[in-house]
């Protein structure tokens, strides 16, 4: 729309016609206070705080409902307006309990801030206050009615934002009260958005309430460790008995790729970190067959010695390595480098939840006509959708997956885009997924019919029983100028190629291949595959890796995850090093298969796999380290060290230490201080990773410069960026906490069709998160409370 010019507080401003005055002012740095106004949610005009004076209008007007108009003259601060706001606050404080000294929101309460600003300090109210007892609505949501100022943000975010509609208003007048959908309790997605959005302490969190004051915490913006969306979460940490404890997760930093959103896992499911049964001492299996605590040097030396013996006696091929979906890119990368250069094996894999090699190959093969075989891949990189793209795309095709359960951040972005921008959503699924409610067109197909659907969309009428819905969907998609296509693990191998081929016929198309965990994508990109190096480079084409590493790499593909256990069973696997993974439980491996294999497990807990180990190394989780992770959409983000637990070590450190114990040169493994270190921020980068100080003694003992340490993940990021051009994004933006979409050129792989399909979808719901989720008391309690009710509200 055309711009209009108007005057606010004597300043000439311009904004597009139709912009709400409150937004236009915020854009220009003029803050108009409001309780009920919330960008993106429906207008209420209920709190009357945003009143302003508009020339030639008799009464004060609410800035949240007034669109800017040409030549409008506005005053936002004057004695009259200040008085109006002060009076509104006085009216609110009348029935407010003023229990600020114990209120969770004390110190970060909008009502406090407004009271401070407008000086409603005199208590005029001498009547008896209304009181209602506090209510617990769910394991995570508590409601304290007297504190509520009835701004209806919670009602709207739950209904409009989440499409759950679990909150409403009961009674009227002074008796009006926010109420949950099931009389005295909530049945909802437990996202906690209502708590996040509450401007006061009326809605409080089951994990946080009465635990601390906000100013006693450090607030660290990092990335949630759960699903593949990679949402930004801000962790409130406070000094505890044995380190820094996480006491809260929220979304203070609304600039992340998740915008306003966090789901139950990002908000509450950090509690695994503080569990009593967390491993804090290395364990070694004793002669009596029991695991017993030892000190770190003993554990590392022992593990290193055994690995060295097996490598030297039986060759690297007798050792297997299993990596994690939840370690950083730097750790995953380091793990494969350790496996290939120190252990000398390609026997490396991870729990695959999406077929990224097939995706990479498919994009690589979608070469523009005439570009020739040596041409740059036409679609690679630039054809991959960022999570942010889903918030603004005009049209989205969602194939398979259930984002509400498995990618709640994506589901939020799609819902918001449909609601605010009238984006068109096309959904095809074998289940009646909740997101169909936002869909322009929903097509239910049989579970095995996804390939047929793609053939049908591509023009093959015989592929699918062409009922009316399918034809409508095809016609609608063909009419789209640009399209985002997100697909779940229903698509693998050749199906991914078929889908990408179909998409390349459309004018503009971008894809997203959905994987299940925070760094599932990074694990794939970083080469946790027996046949692929970082960047999907086949192990046979490793020349430039060998050059960078200064040592030869094994040329033949190694064992994949299933083959490793087969090898173990027949006695061909001398040792297995498992980092942050629980294959015994996830793949249903018979524990007896490992009886002749020396097993080293690095984990937070004594999982089913760790219970079988000969050496258990207590590891830090994603909230206790620095580095980068890549979400399912190829958005690269930095994680910051938030918490700390005495006794544990990061996977990065443990890999380096283990390499040291095997006699490898740490400087060769982690090329710190070597050529081409782009990100030498000196002391700052050490501080960033939080590792340098702690390692000062060890570094000095090894004649290493503490400022540039082999424990600095950024040193390895430099190397990743040299070898995997897609990851060559600006460091400064990463350090600043911005998400960076991967660059084109990720792909080298030529043929993925013949690879074994080892994708095992986790089938997590909103309330589960693989092995890790089992250790979250909060997730367990929510699932317990929901029995026998259905999962996610539908």
């Amino acid at each position, binding site marked *: 729309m055309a711009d209009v010019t108007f005057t606010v507080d004597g300043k000439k401003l311009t904004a597009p016609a139709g912009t709400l005055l409150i937004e236009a002012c915020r854009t220009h740095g003029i803050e108009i206070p409001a309780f009920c106004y919330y960008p993106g949610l429906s*207008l*209420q*005009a*209920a*709190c*009357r705080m945003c*009143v302003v004076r508009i020339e030639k209008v008799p*009464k*004060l007007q609410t800035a949240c*409902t007034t669109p800017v108009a040409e030549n409008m003259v506005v005053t936002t601060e004057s004695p009259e307006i200040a*008085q*109006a706001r002060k*009076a*509104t606050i*006085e*009216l*609110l404080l*009348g*029935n407010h309990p003023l229990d600020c000294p114990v209120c969770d929101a004390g110190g970060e309460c909008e009502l406090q801030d407004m009271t401070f600003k407008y000086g409603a300090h005199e208590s*005029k*109210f001498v*009547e*008896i206050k*209304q009181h209602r007892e506090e209510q617990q609505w769910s394991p995570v949501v508590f409601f304290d009615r007297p504190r509520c*100022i*009835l701004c209806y943000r919670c009602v709207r975010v739950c209904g409009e934002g989440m499409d759950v509609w679990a909150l409403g*208003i009961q*009674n*009227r*007048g*002074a*008796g*009006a009260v926010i109420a949950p959908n099931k009389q005295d309790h909530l049945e909802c997605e437990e996202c906690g958005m209502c708590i996040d959005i509450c401007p006061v302490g009326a809605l409080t969190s089951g994990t946080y309430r009465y635990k601390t004051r906000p100013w006693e915490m450090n607030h660290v913006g990092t990335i949630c460790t759960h699903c593949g969306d990679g949402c930004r979460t801000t962790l409130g940490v406070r000094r505890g008995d044995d380190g820094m404890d996480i006491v809260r997760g929220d979304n203070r930093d609304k600039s992340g790729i998740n915008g306003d959103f966090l789901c139950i896992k990002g908000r509450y499911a950090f509690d695994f970190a503080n569990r009593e049964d967390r491993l804090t001492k290395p364990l070694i299996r004793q002669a009596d067959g029991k695991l017993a605590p030892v000190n770190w040097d003993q554990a590392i030396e022992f593990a290193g010695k055994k690995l060295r013996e097996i490598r030297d006696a039986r060759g690297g091929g007798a050792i297997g390595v299993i990596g994690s979906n939840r370690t950083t890119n730097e750790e995953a990368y380091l793990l494969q480098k350790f496996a290939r250069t120190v252990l000398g094996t390609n026997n490396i894999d991870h729990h695959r939840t999406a077929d990224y090699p097939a995706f990479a190959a498919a994009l690589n093969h979608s070469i523009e006509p005439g570009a020739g075989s040596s041409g740059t891949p036409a679609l690679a990189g630039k054809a991959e959708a960022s999570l942010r793209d889903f918030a603004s795309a005009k049209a989205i095709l969602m194939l398979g997956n259930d984002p509400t359960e498995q990618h709640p951040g994506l589901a939020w972005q799609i819902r918001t885009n449909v609601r605010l921008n009238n984006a068109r959503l096309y959904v095809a699924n074998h289940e009646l997924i909740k997101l169909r409610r936002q869909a322009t067109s929903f097509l239910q197909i049989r579970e095995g019919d996804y390939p047929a659907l793609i053939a049908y969309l591509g023009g093959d009428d015989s592929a699918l029983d062409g009922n009316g819905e399918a034809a409508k969907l095809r016609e609608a998609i063909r009419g789209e100028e640009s399209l985002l296509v997100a697909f779940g693990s229903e698509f693998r191998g050749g199906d991914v190629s078929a889908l990408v081929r179909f998409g390349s016929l459309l004018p503009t198309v971008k894809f997203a291949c959905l994987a299940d965990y925070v760094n599932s994508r990074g694990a794939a990109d970083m080469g946790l595959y027996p046949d692929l190096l970082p960047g999907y480079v086949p192990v046979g084409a490793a020349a430039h890796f060998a050059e960078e590493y200064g040592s030869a790499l094994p040329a033949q593909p190694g064992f994949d995850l299933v083959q490793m256990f087969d090898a173990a069973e027949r006695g061909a696997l001398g040792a297995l090093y498992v980092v942050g993974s629980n294959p015994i439980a996830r793949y249903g491996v018979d524990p007896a298969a490992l009886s002749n294999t020396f097993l080293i497990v690095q984990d937070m807990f004594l999982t089913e796999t760790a219970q079988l180990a000969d050496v258990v190394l207590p590891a830090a989780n994603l909230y206790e380290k620095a580095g980068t992770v890549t979400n399912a959409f190829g958005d690269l983000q930095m994680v910051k060290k938030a918490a700390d637990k005495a006794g544990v070590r990061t996977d990065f450190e443990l890999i380096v230490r283990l390499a040291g114990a095997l006699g490898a040169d740490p400087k060769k493994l982690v090329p710190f201080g070597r050529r081409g270190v782009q990100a030498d921020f000196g002391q700052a980068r050490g501080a960033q990773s939080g590792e340098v100080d702690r390692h000062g003694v060890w570094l000095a003992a090894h004649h290493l410069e503490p400022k540039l340490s082999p424990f600095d993940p950024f040193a390895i990021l430099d190397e990743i960026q040299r070898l995997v051009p897609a990851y060559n994004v600006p460091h400064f933006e990463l350090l600043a906490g911005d998400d960076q979409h991967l660059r084109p050129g990720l792909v080298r792989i030529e043929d993925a069709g013949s690879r074994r399909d080892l994708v095992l979808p986790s089938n997590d719901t909103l309330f589960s998160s693989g092995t890790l989720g089992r250790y979250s008391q909060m997730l367990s309690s929510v699932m317990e409370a929901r029995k026998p009710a259905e999962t996610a509200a539908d």
Partner: protein
Amino acid sequence: MATISTHPDCVPVVSYRFGKGATAIDKYLELDGYKSARKALELGPDGIIGEMKASNLRGRGGAGFPTGLKWSFVPKQAPRPKYVLVNGDESEPGTCKDRLIFEHDPHSVIEGVIIAGLAIQAKMGFIYLRGEYRYLLKIMEKAVEDAYAKGFLGKNIFGSGIDFDIVTQTGAGAYEVGEESALMESLEGKRGVPRIRPPFPAVVGLYGGPTIINNAETIATVPHIFRIGGAEYAKLGTERNGGTRLFCLSGHLQRPGVYELPMGYNLKRMIYEVGGGIRDGKKLKAVVPGGSSTPVLLPEEIDIGMDFDQVGKAGSMLGSGGVVVLDETVCIVEFALRTMKFYQHESCGWCIPCREGTDWLKKSLTRLHAGGAVDKDIDNIRYLAENMLGRTFCPLGDAAAMPTLGFVKKFRKEFEDHLEGRGCPYHKAREEETALV
């Protein structure tokens, strides 16, 4: 059945058929019924609106907006269906006129809706009665049924080729839904809270369609305007205040009742001649001229014409035409408290100033009336009312604040008499009186 009261000064226009059995459709037809609708059909939309403008009819709900002008705001072309909506949520204390219309002349409402529908080319009308008027729904439903049977509603009304339907509905007992946008919310099946305006109902109203919503008396007046002619109707009243209206006289009068009098009729004469003066030879203390939300007038302020402009000039409002007369035995604090109890009970709770303000004022007035207040509390009552005024989402907050401000300003002495433990002097007087008996 409630009846209309009469006085020689009365001019029966709206009440023309009251007491004549016009609930029966045949009787209604005998008394010139549905002739206006036929006439309107001939006039067409522009003709109807022209006639309405000529009548100088102003909305009888309280705000007094010119009806013809309101109808002319409805766009001719609209993407959604247009609707006519009758606001029969008569809830303003002191007002009981619409009830008589529904009881005595339901067809005039139907005919008015048809004419309004023709004016804006709507195909559907809704008649919304307040929840407490559920018993009137039967009369209204019977009338609608009869009109359908005669072919005045439904397909091809009056053989004109035009279709028009009417649906009746009652509320659930909320004063707030008398506010037009809240009424639309309620009619749509939602909580009765008002909507943000603009957009105004004429553009985006019921179910998102352009809607004219008028008070029941306004709509019932429409057929009479076409019966006697717009210009003729206008002449009955004063300048810019056409016609007559139903005034509801209540309180300490000799002859309280609903009287149809010309607009601009002198208030003093209304009280002393039409209403027969104050009962039991007592003295007049105050008059609430237009329903409980209008500021109080003192005896020396009542020599004014009862139209929207003159009452406005006197510092109050003509409102809904509910004239409440208070004699010297009334405790103004108690009256203010009773008024505030009503608004506190009826506040929908949507916005802060009204929700919190009415509740706080009720509590303070209760305490003050019982003698538990000090001087500062009177100032605080005034402060609260002043800070509600003009700040609320809808006019309900104003409706609660305006009379309160009037009482405090004009009867401050009486408030002061209650302070510091003294309590209500009127109560004491009454108790003494009772004791003597």
